[in-house]
Every structure is written in C-alpha cells, then in structure tokens.
C-alpha cells in the first residue's frame, strides 16, 4: 500500500497565532484515521488544508500530486469534505443537494446524466435518506440533514473522504451508523480521515488515531497506543483512566477529578463478586490511599482495582483463602483507618475475609441485601456477619456511601 496523503511541514497561522504547527502526516490507502484532540487543536483546520479551502505553508500531496498545483475541480474529484454543521437557508430538496456532489464532473451547460442520478440515488439509499428526497433541506432535523450531506459527500465519488465531526448533531443510532459506513468504505479501499469528538467511538471504529493538541500531532498510532491515560491527561488536562470495558471488550475512558487533600488517609476494602468496583471508584475520587482484598482470580473487582492502581490481594479461583493471604489481609486492615465491607456473597471460600474484618479498627458495612439471602455457608457466615454488625460504626446502603467518606 502506498501513501495516498502526504503532508510535510504544514504550517498555518491566523493573526500570528499558529493554528497548525509543522504537521507531518502520511496516510495509506484504505485507512480509517480518526483525528482527535481538544477543541482548537487544529483538527478542522487540518482537514480544510487537505481540501484546499485554506492555503497553508508546506506541502500536501494527494496521490503523489501537490494539491496547490491541481485545479479546484480535479482536487474535488479526489478529495471530498463533509463540513461540520452546514446550514442551508434555502428549501432545496434533498435530491438536488445530493446531486450537487456531481459538480466536479459536469461541464457548465451539461445536464446531469442518468448515471449521475443513479449515483446520487445509490448513496441516498445507502444513507437511508431516499424517503427524504423531496423534503426541503432547511426543514429537516439535524440528523437528517447530516445524512443527506453525507450522501452528497459520497456522491462526489472520491478516493479520500474527509469528515469533520460527522456525528456532532446525530442521535446515537446514526452516530454509530456513519462510522459503520466509514468502516465499510475504508474496507472497499477508500481512505477516510475524520475529526472525531467522541473518543470511545474513535477507538471503536478507527484503525488509527492521530491525537492533536495546539496545532501539533502529539501521538499517532493504533487506538491502544494513542489513547493512554498519560496522553489524555496531558492533552485534555484531566485525570483520565483508559481501560478495556469487560462487558463490551472496547476501550473505555473514565474521567475524574482527584481530591488531593486526603492522600494520608488509608482505607481497606473487602469485597468480591463485583461488589467492590463502585466503592473503589468513590474512594479513588476522594484521593484516599486504598488497599483491597482478598479477591479471587477472575473477579471483576480485580479489574477495577487495576484501573485505579490499587494494591490488592488475590487468591486462586475456587479455593479457600490461604494463611499467608489471610495474614496479609490482616496487615492491610490494621494499617487502615477505616475498613469497608462490601455487600458481597458469603461462601466457605471467602469466610476468612469476614474473620479478618473482625480485627478492623473502624468498620463500615455496606448492606443492600440481608446477609441471609447471600449466605451460602448454611448460617455460619451470617453469625460472624451479625457480630460484625454490632461492632461496625455504620451499616448503610451503598447509595449512601458518600455520606461516611
């Protein structure tokens, strides 16, 4: 595969302010590249430079040809750009708007041929807008208009398709739709470059992401390489945690603010079976020092602990807690100011977690369900649990956890 787009040392400024700062980027045929970055990073400007709307310093080559040496029409046969938020004030029927995509191919007095109509119709069917063909573009919803404009962009039949925030005004149904189309198009050999606001969608559909900030390219590579906690924290100025969502198997992003004051306060969380996840998150946001355990291998609580960088203890699955781990757990509990016991199922394997909790200095019990309903030890665990309850400083519903933190 060869580079269909080659950008070298591209600079663009407005009023002495650098909008694009020495951009170099090569895109191969058939790639679906997501341009991400905060507002004002230069994503839109870069797309417009590729399309010849802005004349920037530096070289932009499409198919090996310098775009500033191409005529407007021949560039429009190679590159199509779908703008963000195009407003059309006149009641053009959708069909006529889509047909305007044929402009580069038609001579001044030439009528649209049957073939032109066929291409327009095909793309309207593809974007599910054929029912709107007689509707006025200025009376449509934002989503309908965006799909009509997408059809128009496709009707230009270019090898390179640029999309500027294509889903900004779309319902979730069509948000995903446009990227599914884009993926199909890139599989057919078209090259798609899209400025994308939504990082999760970008990670899900793009084969490659380019992260921009202040007019520069900060990171470039696969979604996993680019969407790291470090990159996002630096570029967006927030604390971002990137992790693989265990339910969807997709990259997910968790953005939060950490309370810096509470660093010295220690918490220990006893949980399991996925009951500790939200507790760990809330403690993490408060900025406490946290430890957790004992969990069993394969528990989703372990994934949570890893995302938040929490020390945890782990036992092999389907076995009882060993003496060694029991003692480690005790050590964590004794070191902590407060221990939290989650609303976990109680079994013979994890009963020693309850025994360890008896040593806690300050115990908070989260109880959403009565212990009898989640006791699988034949009453033994409930006995210990009720003793713990008498000792605990608070027994609360999980929704009220923030009150004791």
């Amino acid at each position, binding site marked *: 595969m060869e580079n269909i787009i080659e950008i070298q040392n591209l600079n663009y400024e407005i009023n002495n302010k650098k909008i694009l700062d020495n951009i170099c980027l090569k895109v191969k045929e058939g790639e679906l590249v997501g341009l991400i970055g905060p507002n004002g990073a230069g994503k839109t400007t870069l797309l417009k430079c590729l399309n010849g709307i802005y004349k920037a310093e530096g070289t932009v080559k499409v198919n090996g040809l310098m775009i500033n040496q191409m005529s*407007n029409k021949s560039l429009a046969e190679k590159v199509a750009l779908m703008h963000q938020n195009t407003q059309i004030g006149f*009641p*053009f029927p959708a069909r006529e*708007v889509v047909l305007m995509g044929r*402009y*580069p191919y038609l001579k*001044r007095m030439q009528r649209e041929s049957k073939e032109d109509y066929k291409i327009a119709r095909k793309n309207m069917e593809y974007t599910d807008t054929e029912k709107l063909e007689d509707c006025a573009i200025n009376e449509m919803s934002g989503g309908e208009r965006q799909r009509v404009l997408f059809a128009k962009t496709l009707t230009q039949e270019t090898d390179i398709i640029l999309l500027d925030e294509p889903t900004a005004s779309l319902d979730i149904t069509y948000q995903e739709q446009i990227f599914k189309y884009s993926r199909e198009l890139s599989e057919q050999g078209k090259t798609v470059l899209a400025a994308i606001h939504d990082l999760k969608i970008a990670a899900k559909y793009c084969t490659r992401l380019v992260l921009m900030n202040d007019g520069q390219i900060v990171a470039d590579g696969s979604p996993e390489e680019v969407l790291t906690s470090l990159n996002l924290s630096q570029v967006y100025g927030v604390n971002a945690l990137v992790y693989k969502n265990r339910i969807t198997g997709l990259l997910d992003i968790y953005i939060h603010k950490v309370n810096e004051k509470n660093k010295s306060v220690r918490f220990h969380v006893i949980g399991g079976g996925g009951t500790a996840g939200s507790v760990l998150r809330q403690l993490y946001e408060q900025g406490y020092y946290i430890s957790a355990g004992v969990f069993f291998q394969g528990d989703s609580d372990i994934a949570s602990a890893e995302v938040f960088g929490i020390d945890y203890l782990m036992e092999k699955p389907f076995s009882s807690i060993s003496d060694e781990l029991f003692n480690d757990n005790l050590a964590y509990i004794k070191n902590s100011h407060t221990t939290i016991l989650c609303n976990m199922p109680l079994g013979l394997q994890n009963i020693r977690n309850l025994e360890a909790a008896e040593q806690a200095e300050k115990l908070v019990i989260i109880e959403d369900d009565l212990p009898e309903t989640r006791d699988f030890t034949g009453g033994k665990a409930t006995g210990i649990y009720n003793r713990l309850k008498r000792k605990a400083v608070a027994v609360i519903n999980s929704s009220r956890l923030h009150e004791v933190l």
Partner: protein
Amino acid sequence: MKNKKNKKNLTNVGFIPAMLVLLLIVMVVGTAIGAVNVPFFDTFKIILKNIGILKHATFAEGQEPIIFLVRFPRVLVAALAGTALASSGAVMQGMFRNPMADPGLLGISSGSGLGAVLAIKLGLTAASMYFMPLFAFTGAFIAIFVIYLLSYQKGKVPVLTLMLSGIAVSTFIGAITNIILTLSYDYQVKEFLFWSTGGLDGRRWEHVQLVMVPIILSVILMFVFSRDLNVLMLGEEEAKSVGLSSGKIRTVLLVLVSIATASAVCVSGAISFVGLIVPHIMRILVGPNYKKLLPASSIGGAIFLVACDLVSRVVAIPYEIGVGIITALVGAPYFLYLLLRSKKEGGTVI
C-alpha cells in the same frame, strides 16, 4: 407516490410556457390601454403588422403610431428592465446566500447614477448615446465591488455588514452625484432628472435598441451559471469542497449583474424592489433551484414591471405616476412582511 411525482414534474414543465403566455397577454394589454384605448385584438394585429408578419391590415387613423411608436417600445423597455432587475436580484440573492439582496439595496443603482451624471457632465451623451450606459455600468460595477470588498470577512459576506456598507457607499456616491449636479448647467440637471426619476414615459425604440442586446445577453449568461449559483447557496466552503472556484465565478456574476442592472437603470431610472420581490415569489412557486428560478424570475420580472407600468399610467388619468412609485408601493410592504416573518422564524433571513 409515483403519480404524484409525475404530476409535479408536469406542472414544472408547463410553468415557463404558461408564464410566457401571460407575459404576452400583459404586454398586449399594456400596449392597448392608455389615454386612447385600442381593442386588444387590433393592438396585437398592429404589432404583428409593423414587425412584418401581418400584411394588408388597416386600422383607425392615428392608432398605428400610438401603438407601435409610443406604447409598444415603452412596454418593451419595461419588460427588458424588469427582466434585468429580477434576474440580477435572483443572482445576487444566491451569491450572498440571502433572500434580501437586491441591486437597489446594494448601491448598484446609485453607482450607475453617478456614472450617468458624469457622462452628462462631460458632455459625452451628446457625442454618442452609448456613453451613458457605459459609464453607468462602470459606476455600478465599481460601487458593488467596493461594497463587496468592504463586507467580505473570512470567506463570508455577513448580510448586516453588506447592507450597512451598501447604505454608506450609496450615500457617499449620492453626495458626489449631488456635488456634480450643483456644478452643472440647468439643461444637464434636467437631463439627469429625466433619467433618474424612475419612470418609463417617453421611452422610444432608440431606448429599446440601446439596452436590448446587453440585457438579453447578460441574462442568458446568468442562466449558464445556474449550477454554480445552486452550489454557492450551500456556502463558500461547501462550494469550494465540490471544486467551485468561487472568486472567479463571483467576479463574473458581479459583472453580469452590473451590466444588466446598469442597462435597466439607463432606460428606466432607479426602480426599486423588482429584484427583491420577483425572485422571492418565484422561489415559492418553482423552488430555489436556479435552473428553474432564473428563467422564471426573468419572465416574472418582465410581467411585473409591464403590469406596474400599466397601473402607473391608468390609475390617475390624465396624470402619470412614476412606475418606481408603484413598485415601491407594492415592494416595501412585501419587504417588511419578509422581515417580520423572518423575525418570527428566528431571524433566518438576516
């Protein structure tokens, strides 16, 4: 569904011929009615006879000269001016992406006025009758170009800026025109006043000859740019994305609009609102597509101005009200109606 579509196309196909028939009727009626009424059919026959189609027809004494030498050229001038103004208005509305754009509002009329005064002052009108349209065109083009440059910001022409700079430039040009008039001889002032009042009385075949070619030519050339106008309506950057060289095309269109408007102003004076309301009504009837809108506007403009001229002649016999007054009486309320409606719809027009 299919039937509905076919029916719609049929009305669209028949619309332009229907308008042409209507124009013919209005022109015959406009020629027939006046201080001396001539039956419509006779009027039609007189016109046909004098352009050499009908032979061996005789009419009451004096009717032939009234119809063919006085009224018919006047009606033709009205039709040509109406065509020029309405087509120019339609083109400007597309170029500026705004239904409020109009040659009169944008200083073209005042620019061509200054050009005309200069031609009169320099005594060139006596040398050749073509100097006045030439000067008027130059003045119109310079005026609209200056206004356009003043309001152009980052690839857009904001309408408010456009209108304000239009007013400022027009006022400035008006002041210069007045200075020149103050320094002119009486007969020159009279010549200018006769020209500038926006009337059609006393228009003869020579006026038809003067503007027929530039108006018809420039309007036909506008038709050639229909698709470009459609694409321009999507916006400057959208237009560039499909490969339209907007700078070049805008310049060409400005020249065409200037030629058409200046020619109209040369023979009819400054007639307001034709370029605004005719394209507007046509847009409601045939839609915004310039392939239909421009032909419809050009014919509609002719019908409108011929009809207004007829009203201006008969409404207060034996006096004649300037046709510009009639168009203003119809146009100004319509303009206000548009403003009010756009206010209601959340200000999409301005």
